[in-house]
């Protein structure tokens, strides 16, 4: 019976993610004084990509790359409690699921690396090399922040972390542990891969990066994953730092605001080169993360 609720949750998340992507594209278009795409454009793009007629493969890993990537996104979803206090939408949340989710965040990237490598396009290999190096440094402040709140709440279960933050805004990790929140929110910029940290798929340098060779259904799967992954990472941060959600409305609002923040930063900043972005993550965010552990 649980599997039905999980699938229902996944359905809601995908739809919410697609709509959110469309709305955000309209908002960024407004900054550029444009009207922008219709809000339902991500749906159409997805349908079209799944309906491409001719497809070919570069090898086994070319098939498996998007599968790995999608399994990373779905994996995060499976173990993430969505609504606090709701048995139905807690998914397979359990003790220690925070570690599992951090693992799933990386596995998608690794799968992508194998697929992009099999594709053989030099730009996709350059892109994925950059992606792996940047993501490794992004993980450093995030892991430090997670260790800090694990010490703070004496648990690695997301449900319990959310439970500890209930009872008003002053109980959120944002207020009780601002240093960890700061470190994690800075690394969130790198996770979402908007400017200034979008060197992985920088269009002017290595057009599109890792997915250069992916098309049709492969690309459709990557897009589906992008939608799930983006929303789920925002929900993870909501659960860890912003008090979780007790109903769908609060979840949508919080997830939207958290997701909007890297988009907002990305609209007005150019991108760092890969060496600069790695250095950036190892300076301020890492320092904040270390301070968060010291002053917990």
């Amino acid at each position, binding site marked *: 019976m649980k599997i039905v609720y999980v699938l229902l949750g996944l359905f809601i998340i995908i739809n919410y993610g697609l709509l959110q992507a469309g709305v955000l594209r309209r908002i960024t278009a407004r900054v550029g004084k444009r009207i922008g795409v*219709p809000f339902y454009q991500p749906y159409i793009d997805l349908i*079209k990509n799944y309906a491409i*007629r001719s497809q070919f493969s570069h090898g086994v890993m070319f098939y498996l790359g998007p599968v790995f990537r999608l399994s990373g996104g779905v994996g995060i979803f499976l173990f993430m409690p969505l609504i606090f206090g709701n048995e139905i939408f807690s998914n397979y949340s359990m003790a220690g699921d925070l570690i599992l989710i951090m693992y799933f965040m990386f596995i998608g990237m690794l799968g992508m690396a194998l697929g992009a490598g099999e594709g053989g396009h030099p730009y996709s290999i350059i892109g994925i090399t950059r992606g792996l190096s940047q993501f490794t440094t992004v993980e450093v402040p995030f892991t430090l922040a997670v260790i800090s709140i694990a010490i703070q709440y004496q648990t690695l279960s997301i449900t319990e972390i959310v439970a500890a933050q209930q009872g008003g805004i002053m109980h959120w990790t944002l207020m009780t542990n601002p240093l960890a929140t700061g470190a994690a929110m800075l690394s969130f910029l790198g996770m979402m891969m908007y400017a200034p940290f979008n060197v992985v798929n920088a269009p002017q340098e290595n057009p599109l990066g890792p997915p250069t060779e992916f098309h049709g259904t492969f690309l459709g799967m990557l897009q589906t994953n992008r939608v799930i992954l983006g929303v789920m990472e925002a929900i993870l941060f909501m659960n860890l730092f912003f008090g979780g959600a007790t109903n769908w409305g609060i979840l949508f609002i919080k997830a939207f605001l958290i997701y909007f923040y890297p988009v907002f930063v990305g609209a007005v900043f150019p991108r760092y080169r890969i060496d600069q972005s790695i250095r950036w993550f190892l300076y301020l965010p890492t320092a904040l993360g270390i301070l968060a552990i010291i002053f917990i």
Partner: protein
Amino acid sequence: MAEEKNYKIIQPDNSEENKFLKPENYKREVTAPDGNTFIVDPLNDYFCDAKPQPHAPNTIKVVEKFLNWARSQSIWVLGFGTGCGSIEIYPLMTPRFDAYRFGVQQRPTPRQSNLMIISGYLSVKTLKRAIRSYEQMQSPKFVMALGSCTINGGMYWDSYNTINRLDHYMPVDVYVAGCMPRPEALLAGFMELKKRIREGKGEGANQYAENFDWYKANQKKIIKDWNMPDYNW
């Protein structure tokens, strides 16, 4: 630290078709670690040489209609400025004309694009790249040709380096006339293309596959420096 090379390049004969062959495409005799030798021909062995096949539309009419509607609403343009008409792509994608409203988006890689805009005259050198990009696009794919240069050569009709008629080298869905066409004309061209796709007439990829030999003969007539596989997957 010069390593011993495990292959020997075979010099090609001086026939007409080998005139412009590049050194990296020469046949070579490779010695495997176990001592066997075999011959590698980069142009044939490194690429799949199957001809393109036509892909039949979905047999269920309603599904195909729906998919065609989706294709018409989500046109990903290959960002390849082949000629001077590409300067009008800037206004097209920016606030004044904003083609994003109609689902037109740019894509830097041919694998993910559906529409190729040939923006004006094509020199022989660019035509080779354009064909290569076109063949790398996935079916269904469309071609929009801008300017009078692609229709009959325009003001370069007597030039030794620009083609006169694009439809001899790749199937064209929509022509937009003008030199160069204004962004409004381009938008009208997009509308026309959408209508064509919705009516199920945007089958250029199948047309290309069915008349493959004719197109190839035309292309090979003018591109003497071929140096690539016959069909680029």
